[in-house]
Structure formats: C-alpha cells, structure tokens
C-alpha cells in the first residue's frame, strides 16, 4: 500500500490527470496518497501550516462524482495541490505564517482559488512561508522553519519555501506561491523544481494578502514545465476585481510546449555573472547557455547597467508598500489582539509588537521611514525613478534578445541559521530576482543540475511582459533535451 501511494505522488499533474481520465486511478486514491505522504513527511519538513484532510477528501469525492461518466474532463481535474498561506481560502485558516493572523478564517476565496475549484483541483492545505512573504529562507515563519527536502539542515528558500518543499518532496502535486522579489523562483531553485513568476497583471491578486501590491504576483510551482503551462492556463486571465489585472487575450500556454529554440535570441547579462555569484552555480548556468546554443539558439552577451540599484530600490519600494498594507493589522477587526491594554494607542502598540515577527517589523519601520515627510523624495520617489530606469534597461535589452538567461540565486540552498544574523546579506541573495518584479516582467526558474554537495541549481529565464509562452518554450526545450526537472526524487 505504502509503495503504491509513493508511486502515485511521483506522478506529475499531467500524468496523474491522464490516469484519472482513463479511470486507472480515482481522485480519492490520489488524494489519499498525498495525505499519507503529508502524514509521513510534514513533521520533518514543515511544509504545511494547515492540512485540510477532511475537506480534501470531501472535495475529492465530489470531483470524482462529477467526473464519473463524463467525457469532457478538465486538464487538472482531481489533481491535489497545496496553496501558500497568504492566498485566502474561504473558511480555511489563512495565516501568512504570522501570529497576527493565526485565527483568521477568510470569508471568501481568492480569485485563483475560485479558478482552481472550477477546474476541479483538490486543495490539500495551506503551505508554510516567511511571515507575510518577507524573507528568502522560510526561517521567518511564526510556526516553524521549513526544511529543504534535499538536506534537512538547509533552508528551502523563501518566501514560498513551503510550496517549493512540498512539490519537491511530493507532498503536493503542484503548488501556488507568490513572488514579490523572487519568492517563487528562489525556493524553486533551492528545491529543484519549476517556478514561474507571471507578468504583473497576468494573474489576479484578488485574495492574495498583500505584501507589496505593485510587485506581488501569484504563480505556479510545479515538477516540470508542462505542469507549469497547465496551471497557468487555469490561473492567468483578466479579473475585474483587481484593478491592476490586465485585460488582454491570454494564450493556451500548453501550445508553447515545443522542443524548439532555433533562432531564439538568448541574452546573458554580464552584470549577472560578476562577483558574488558562486563558481559552481555560474558553471551550471554557462553549461545551460552552451546547451541552448547546441539546440539552435543564439547566445548574446547583453548589459543591464542599473542592476546594482535593483536591491536598494526593491527594498525601499517593497517596504514602503508593506508598511502601508500591513497597517490594517491593528487588533480591531480580526486577527491577533493583545490581551491587556490601557487605551487604544496601547492596544495598537502591544498588538503590533506582539503579533508581528522581527523581520516584518524591520520592513514596516524601513517603509514608514521611507514614506515620512522629509524623506519621501530622497527614498521613495528616488526608488520609483530607479524603477523606471531598470524597466528601460530591460526594454533596451529586449530590442536585441527574446529572452534573458541567468542564475536564479547566487548560491544553492544555505544552512538554516547561516544568514539570519545578517539581514543585509540575506537581502543581497535576491539580486537576480528582484529586477523582474521591479520591471513587471515574467520569469521562470528551472532545475539545471546539482552542485558538488548534491544541491539543486536553478537557472532563470526572464521574458518580456506577457511573453510567458517563450519562457515555457525555452524551458521545455531544455528540460526535454537534458531530462532535468523537478520530477527527480529528492531522495526521501
């Protein structure tokens, strides 16, 4: 029994859906297999904050009933998925991994959850993360740190660490994460799975608990590129309830699953290969570039001169928006409230001091400072100008190339506790991912081998706005030819 369960959880969404369609397996069997896997591993990995076993089984039964005797079955029907705990799920606790929201049960579903439900996806539970999505290691969760499935001494990356770890350790078939400065791509790279940050405006943010509204974007974390395309087909699209959602025609992303990059121009930004990039990671990325050349792509060196300003601009903009977005957690309407207080000001102070963790408080203070009168022009306004320049950097680059290739993270998964003492060093590890959010582009991280410690290395492909199709095509080509994907068992 155990053995067959393990086999079921090894299947990608595409493969499992095929078996469901052919009535080889039932949705209930598949869901049970995942719940058993979670039972077995979650204690060690800490990927889930909330497991909705009963609800998942109920949903599995109702989905199976719907599928019985039906021919037209949606591509992801019956596939069990995990959801990052900053995406609202009706009547299911949604915590942002914060004490502040430990008792928060949203009265509504996020737009992406509605879409998954309509597609008959089974929701297994809510995935661990850095508190309010602030962090690159998942050590900032109020509940517990997430362990990297490849090495339990190491971090899974963040902030969607639970999502990446769950997919890598087969505790969910795929997951939805969110990416504000690399929070999907960096953990995907640390855990050896595929993570896509869609173009800003491609996926509705309605129901995503905001960290930095102008940067946040929900996206899929999957075992391979085909699953990524399938999930994108469900979640991408215009939503009138999100004013920043873009109203365009969204393609069928599976049509880009083609093993063909002939003539595709791929740019390597020289700024992404300088000091700070670990030699082993660098070697893997250059190998990938060579591989692309051998498939018929044209590799060109390009320059993104404002790269060095991306980190400071990112931390000012994201912290400023966070200080505003997180102001609503005041102990009045929902969430944590301090037990004892003398008056309303005291209630605010104690609630927020006790309810938020250190990193969240640090960012709120940074952001509040950046928006204060007298400092606004020097910090926030300046950062917005830099944002424009970084966007123009990419615009110029895309006149020459179709897609940009580089590392996702300068290093592979680091040890738990290794960087917690130095937040600035932690921030610098976002150097290759934040520009994408600042410029509102799309980018995918996919596995491209292992370092000498046996840890996954991720490479990043950055695309033009709304050109996820090209990313999927390029990633699929690499995956098909090298066989490198998140399907690889992480050894547990």
């Amino acid at each position, binding site marked *: 029994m155990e053995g067959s369960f393990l086999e079921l959880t090894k299947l990608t969404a595409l493969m499992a859906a095929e078996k469901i369609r052919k009535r080889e397996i039932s949705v209930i069997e598949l869901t049970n297999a995942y719940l058993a896997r979670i039972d077995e591993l979650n204690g060690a990995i800490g990927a889930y904050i909330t497991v909705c076993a009963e609800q998942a089984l109920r949903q599995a039964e109702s989905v199976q009933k719907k599928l019985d005797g039906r021919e037209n079955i949606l591509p992801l029907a019956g596939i069990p998925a995990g959801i990052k705990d900053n995406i609202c799920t009706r009547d299911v606790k949604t915590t942002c991994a914060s004490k502040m929201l430990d008792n928060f049960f949203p009265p509504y579903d996020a737009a992406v959850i509605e879409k998954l439900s309509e597609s008959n996806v089974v929701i297994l539970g809510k995935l661990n993360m850095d508190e309010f999505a602030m962090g690159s290691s998942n050590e900032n969760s109020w509940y517990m740190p997430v362990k990297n499935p490849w090495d339990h001494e190491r971090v899974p990356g963040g902030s969607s660490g639970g999502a990446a770890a769950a997919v890598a350790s087969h505790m969910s078939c795929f997951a939805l994460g969110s990416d504000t400065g690399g929070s999907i791509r960096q953990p995907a790279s640390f855990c050896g799975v595929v993570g896509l940050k869609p173009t800003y405006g491609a996926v509705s943010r309605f129901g995503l608990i905001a960290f930095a509204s102008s940067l946040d974007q929900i996206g899929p974390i999957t075992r391979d590129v085909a699953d990524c395309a399938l999930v994108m087909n469900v979640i991408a699209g215009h939503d009138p309830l999100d004013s920043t959602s873009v109203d365009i025609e969204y393609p069928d992303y599976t049509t880009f699953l083609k093993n063909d990059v002939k003539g595709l121009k791929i740019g390597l930004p020289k700024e992404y290969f300088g000091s700070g990039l670990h030699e082993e990671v660098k070697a893997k990325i250059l190998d990938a570039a060579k591989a692309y050349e051998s498939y018929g792509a044209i590799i060109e060196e390009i320059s993104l001169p404002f790269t060095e300003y991306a980190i400071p601009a990112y931390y000012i903009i994201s912290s400023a928006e966070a200080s505003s977005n997180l102001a609503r957690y005041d102990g009045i309407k929902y969430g944590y409230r301090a037990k004892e207080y003398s008056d309303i000001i005291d209630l605010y102070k104690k609630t927020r001091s006790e309810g938020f963790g250190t990193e969240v408080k640090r960012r709120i203070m940074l952001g509040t400072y950046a928006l204060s*009168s007298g400092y606004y022009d020097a910090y926030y306004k300046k950062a917005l100008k830099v944002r424009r320049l970084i966007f123009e950097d990419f615009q110029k680059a895309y006149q020459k190339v179709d897609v940009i290739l580089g590392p996702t993270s300068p290093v592979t998964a680091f040890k738990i506790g290794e960087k917690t003492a130095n937040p600035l060093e932690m921030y610098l590890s976002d150097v290759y991912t934040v520009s994408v959010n600042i410029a509102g582009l799309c980018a995918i991280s996919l596995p491209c081998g292992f370092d000498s410690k046996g840890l996954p290395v991720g490479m990043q492909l950055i695309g033009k706005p709304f050109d996820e199709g090209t990313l999927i095509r390029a990633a699929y080509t690499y995956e098909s030819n090298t066989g490198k994907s998140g399907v690889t068992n992480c050894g547990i």
Partner: protein
Amino acid sequence: MEYEVVIGLEIHAELATKSKIYCGCTTEFGGEPNTHCCPGCIGMPGALPVLNKAVVEYAIKAGLATNCEISHYSRQDRKHYFYPDLAKAYQISQCDYPLCRNGYLEIEVNGEKKKIGITRIHIEEDAGKLIHDEYGRGTFVDYNRSGVPLIEIVTEPDMRSSAEVKAFFEKLKAILEYTAVSDCKMQEGSLRADINLSVRPKGQKEFGVRTEMKNLNSIRAIVRAVEFEAKRQILELEYGGVIERETRRWDDVKGESYSMRTKEEATDYRYMPDPDLYPIYVDQEWIEQIRATIPELPDDRKKRFISELGIPEYDASIITASKPLADFFEAAAKESKNAKAISNWVMGDLMKKLNDTGLEPSDIPFAPGNLARLVSLIDENVISGKIAKQVFDIMWETGEDPADIVEKKGLKVVTDTDAIRSVIIQVISANPKSVEDYKSGKTKAMGFLIGQIMRETKGKADPQAVNRLLKEELDKL
C-alpha cells in the same frame, strides 16, 4: 487696532452614488451596524479596491459646476493614520494630483459681488463610525459608512466674514443639490465643513497663524464658529498673546471651540500613490458628456425667475438657494397666474413654517398646486387674505386641497349684500356712540365698526362690500 479675518473652507460632501467608491456595497444611510459592508470596505486582507466610475463623473460634475479645470490625469493616494473607524488604517484620497482645480464661485453680500476661489476638488472614501455604548460596554465600530464616496472641496483663503462664509457655503450647497452630486443632508453628515481661520491687522499682507475647526455640520454652527474663533483670535492678539497653529473642535452646545491638537502633535500621513489603483485618465470627450448633463444652476435660475416670473431679485436669490424650494415655487408659479403672490407666500408663511418646524423644503407637506389654488381663491375673491392664512395652516397640517378646506369649513367670502347689510344695521344699532363719533368727523370710528362687522361675519364678509354698504347705511342716518 482693526483686524481683518481670513477664512478658507474645506468642505466634505458625500456623493449621491448608489454604491460605495471601491466596492459594490450600498451607500444608503442608516441600516443595522455593519450590514452595508463587504471584505473590501472593512479592510479584510486580500480584498482590492475597484474605482466606481460614477464617483469620477459626480466629482467632475461638481468641478464643472464650480468653474474648475478638470485634470486629464489624476491619481489616488493612500493617507495613513491609525483609528478604529479607518478599516485599512489608510484612507484612499488624492494628494498631489486632484481631479479638479482652479475653480471659483461668485457670491453676493450686501449687494457686493465677490469671487471665492476653489483650489481643488478631490475624491476620497469616508470612514466608518465609532459608537460609544450607552450602557458602558465599550466602544463599537460601524463600517456601514466606510467607503462611502466623498468629494473634498478646498477653497482659497478668500473669505473675510461670517456673512461671506455663509453666502459661499449656501451657494455651494445649492449647486451640489442642483447637480444632484450630493443630497447635502447636513444632519446626516453628508455635508460638513472644516474652517481654516486667521486674523491679521488690517492692511498687513502676510497671513496670520491659522487654526482649523473640524466637522461643522450646520450652517448656523459654521457662522457661530467663525464669529467665535475670529473674536477669540483678535482678543488673544489684543492682549499680547500668540495664535498657535492647531486643530480645534467646535462645541455647538456651549458655543465655543477648544483645542484638540497642536501642530507638533500633527500626524505625518505618509501619502503614497495607491499601488492597487492606476491613475484616472479623463479625456475631453468624457468631460463634455458630463457637462451636457449639468442642469440649470442657481444663478441662471434666479435670472430666469426675475425675468420670466417677475419676482423681486431678493426673493429670487432666497428661493433659488434651495433646489427643492425653487422647484416647489416654480411648480406653484406655473400653475398660478400670480407668481408674485406665490413668491410672497413662499418668502413669508412657508419659510416661517419651515423655520418653526425645522423641516427641509423637500419635506413641504402639501403639493405646489395647492398653494397655486390658494392664491387663486384669494385673487378670485373667494376668501380673504386673512382667511387664507387659516387655510394655509390647515393645508400644512392635512395636505388637503384649499378649495375643499374652504368648502368644508365654510370659509367663503360672503358677498350677499342683503346678508351683509343686515349685519351692518345690527352693528350700527348696537354701537350708537361710534356712529355719533363718525358723524362728528372721527373717521377712526369707521374702522372700529368694520372690525365689529368682520367679527360678526367671522372674517368672511367681502371687505369691499362691507366698506361700501357701511358708508351707504351711515350716510342714510
């Protein structure tokens, strides 16, 4: 020393849109606490704002009606402060790029015309309301009002007296009513004013230090607050004191203001463009579409009432200052042939009734046609002016048609000369002294006798007939 008072206003008007500014909830006043709410307007995590297009249209309408330039590009900003009634701990407002700017209204005080500049009009959301429990169980929050759309109208510091403030405020209120931008129900808080006031020695160019009084919700309170604060500041300076830059609260019961917070304690609102909302782009075509929906405004209506209906300028300004009153007047005047008489009734008895009862012109309890018919009854000599006042009172109470009232109560003028003559003869014989006085040239006695006759006929006798017949009878003696 002689001082000059300098006043600017910030006026908040709730817009009359059906739904809130960033969600689909109703804007209806009242309702059980927290029943006109959704995840959006109570600031739930993950909820997002979507701008109600009607709010932009209403605000542009207000801007056009107050001679503003309409911005083709404007932005929505977050204004941060902590207070339990502010669900998101920020209010979505407009800071650097408001929807309308550089407007003005012309007012007239003591026959002098003056332009009052309007710096800007911007859109923003209202906050909820705190309810302090009367049984001491604590403070509760009602978010029904949270997200109700407002416009804030900011004037230049162009006003110099409470009379100018009153004239400006009434004019603005009339325009907002005429354009149906706001229902302007001050007692429900849908129109309220903050007063910025400073004083300076007459002739001095620089402004004095100003104070701000917040949330005045009646015209009477505005006038009294201006007068109190001007006096307070002048006295302070006269006795060698200094004015502090501060926010003051007006206590309408005590008739005085007191300090709420000084500038040092002032909040830093940390304005930032709202990343959940894109800028508002308004093209000329849209502006023209909105302009086409603006109805006749008070000034034009006043001119028309004077020229078409022939009523005095003073009456016309008072009547057109309130849209419902002007509508009532116009409907009555159109049904009657005597607009001047209608205007007299409106300016006299009707206004007095409204004042005495505290009702709004929109609440007048009888139809305009009834007033027109009342005037006709007088003009056709069916009832006397005196009786008409009685009929008016009954109309106010019951809403009945004046002709029915006259019929039912038997108030018709008695024109039957025989009937009147018999009363006259009776009165003459009962008052020989007065008759003698009259005969000896004391014309006053005539008035007394008429009074007696009217009393006997309960005021219903046709006064002209009484006059003529009495003279005849007296001359016979």
